[in-house]
């Protein structure tokens, strides 16, 4: 049991290395190895999750190379890390099952290098969640980012330019974070998170610590695509292959949000983000602006992927709003939205890829007739849309519900209004797609029929991950009370009851 925090990233790193070597010869073998690595990591995450819940939130600690922290780097599997890691590896397994058919269509001949990059992204992200060391977090952040650049750049014509812009933004974000680590180290003399949380309460007034907190949050904010640092995001998601977008859109930005939450709850002393300096409130306001901005721009988009990208800018704002509220209910809403949005966005990007495989288009006006050709996939799509809008009993409703409770609790009525208005806006842009899908060209002379390239539902390797994701969206909604009481309430305990 005590080895689990190390096993999760190690199995993914190992799979990545072997898949890279094997991928030179056969991309099928590389796929199987990558999938095996992700499945092992997912099983380990589930075991870890179970152990953490049964141990009443007691963290499982693993000292890398048997160097005792704070000298060595430790990996910590606590409630928050277990929650994130299980989510990341689940999405990873789903996207890896989904990947081969979609890649064969969208990026033929280049699949061999995609699988090692995918496992490397996953390894970087789980490493970020598990590490108990703020500098090690930077290294995993950049591992994930570098592998993601490779995955995104193989997309459509505009992909290299969009990726280069993302890279420049990412380098600035990483640089700010690293500078923050430097200030923190010079002020407190350690980079171990547990050690920092012991030493920082004495340094609440230190200017170096305040500068460090601001730099780290700004750096992670750029990586998280927090408004107004979201500029890189729409072009990147629009040009990426469906598989890359399906892997990166759900989890990459969320893990940076996780890092902010981790700093807020466990590294800096309670109240530091709210009292010494209004960091949390600032995050909340820019998130509220991002929610409105993203939702409004999503309405104007004709490309399905670009619409989802702008919707992501808005949805990430909900997580930021949860941080900004800085009360237990709001934070539960934000954390729950990390899970919900990852499942919903992953589902919607995967469906986009399935439609692209059958119809060869990503333009919403050309989606006419999709509902007839792929009825079951479109049922899953409708589930995803209902969840995005936030209609019970889908997952999306409950995170918004907690956020609304949190906003009411804090008396933040403007944010309360923003959440409700943006739900209406997302109803507008998603129901527009639903309408296109279910239009019948035979009785409706206003639209031209769009013949599919191939008839029928998506192939089984794509159809089943979509179905499972749609089921998960429903299941997380129905069983959200279990998740909240077993995990999230314990995570937000530092905020007080």
């Amino acid at each position, binding site marked *: 049991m005590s080895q689990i925090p190390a096993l999760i990233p190690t199995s993914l790193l190992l799979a990545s290395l072997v898949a890279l070597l094997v991928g030179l010869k056969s991309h099928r073998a590389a796929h199987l190895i990558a999938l095996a690595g992700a499945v092992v990591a997912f099983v380990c995450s589930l075991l870890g999750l179970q152990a953490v819940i049964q141990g009443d939130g007691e963290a499982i600690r693993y000292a890398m190379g048997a160097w005792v922290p704070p000298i060595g780097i430790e990996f910590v599997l606590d409630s928050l890390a277990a929650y994130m890691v299980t989510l990341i590896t689940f999405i990873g397994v789903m996207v890896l099952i989904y990947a081969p058919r979609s890649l064969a269509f969208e990026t033929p001949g280049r699949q061999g290098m995609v699988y090692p990059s995918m496992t490397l992204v996953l390894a970087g992200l789980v490493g970020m969640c598990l590490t108990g060391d703020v500098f090690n977090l930077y290294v995993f952040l950049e591992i994930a980012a570098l592998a993601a650049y490779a995955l995104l*750049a193989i997309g459509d014509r*505009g992909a*290299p*330019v969009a990726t*280069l812009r993302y890279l*420049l933004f990412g*380098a600035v974000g*990483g640089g700010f974070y690293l500078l923050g680590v*430097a200030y923190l*180290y010079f002020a407190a003399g350690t980079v171990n998170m547990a050690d920092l949380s012991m030493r920082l309460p004495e340094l609440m007034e230190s200017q170096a610590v305040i500068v460090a907190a601001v730099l780290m949050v700004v750096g992670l904010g750029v990586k998280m695509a927090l408004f107004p640092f979201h500029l890189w995001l729409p072009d990147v998601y629009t040009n990426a292959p469906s598989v890359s977008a399906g892997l990166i859109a759900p989890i990459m930005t969320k893990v940076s949000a996780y890092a902010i939450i981790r700093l807020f709850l466990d590294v800096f002393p309670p109240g530091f983000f709210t009292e010494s300096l209004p960091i949390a409130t600032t995050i909340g306001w820019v998130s509220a602006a991002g929610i409105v901005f993203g939702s409004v721009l999503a309405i104007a988009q004709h490309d399905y992927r670009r619409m989802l990208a702008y919707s992501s800018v808005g949805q990430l704002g909900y997580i930021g709003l949860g941080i900004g509220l800085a009360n237990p209910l709001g934070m539960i809403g934000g954390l729950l939205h990390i899970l919900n949005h990852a499942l919903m966005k992953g589902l919607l990007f995967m469906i986009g890829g399935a439609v692209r495989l059958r119809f060869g288009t990503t333009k919403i006006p050309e989606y006419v007739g999709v509902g007839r050709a792929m009825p079951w996939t479109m049922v899953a799509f409708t589930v995803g849309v209902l969840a995005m809008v936030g209609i019970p009993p889908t997952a999306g409703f409950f995170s918004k519900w907690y956020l609304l409770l949190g906003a009411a609790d804090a008396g933040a009525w403007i944010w309360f209004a923003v959440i409700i208005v943006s739900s209406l806006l997302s109803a507008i842009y998603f129901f527009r797609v639903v309408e296109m899908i279910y239009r019948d060209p035979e009785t409706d002379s206003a639209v031209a029929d769009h013949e599919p390239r191939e008839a029928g539902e998506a192939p089984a390797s794509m159809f089943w991950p979509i179905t499972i994701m749609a089921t998960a969206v429903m299941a997380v909604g129905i069983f959200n009370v279990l998740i909240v009481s077993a995990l999230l309430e314990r995570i937000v305990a530092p905020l007080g009851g």
Partner: protein
Amino acid sequence: MTADFLLSRYPYILIALLFGIGLYGMTVKRNLMKKVIGMTIFQTSIYLFFIQGATKQGATIPVLDPEMGSSPELYINPLPQVIVLTAIVVGVAITGVALSLILVLHRRYGTLDEVELLRRMRESA
């Protein structure tokens, strides 16, 4: 007074200058290659900040020398150096990926000027 301030802080002032030059290059320059150069300068300023913060007058490399004794005053703290070494590796990897993307763009469009590149991209679409 001012001279004292400058003499005691000049490394930090130079580092801040490099930081600003790097950010300026990344945001203002139109040529993608110059943006990447700006990114490298930006990253270097952060490495230098780490190193500067860890320097110690009159201390030596952190290998225990029985003749000198084990007083921490005599040895440089190795952790910031190790952190910077790791960060440099990360930075090199980022630069490598950036250069390979630039190579792809130059082969495809024959220019590295951002505005011109976007224009040619739109035309070919």
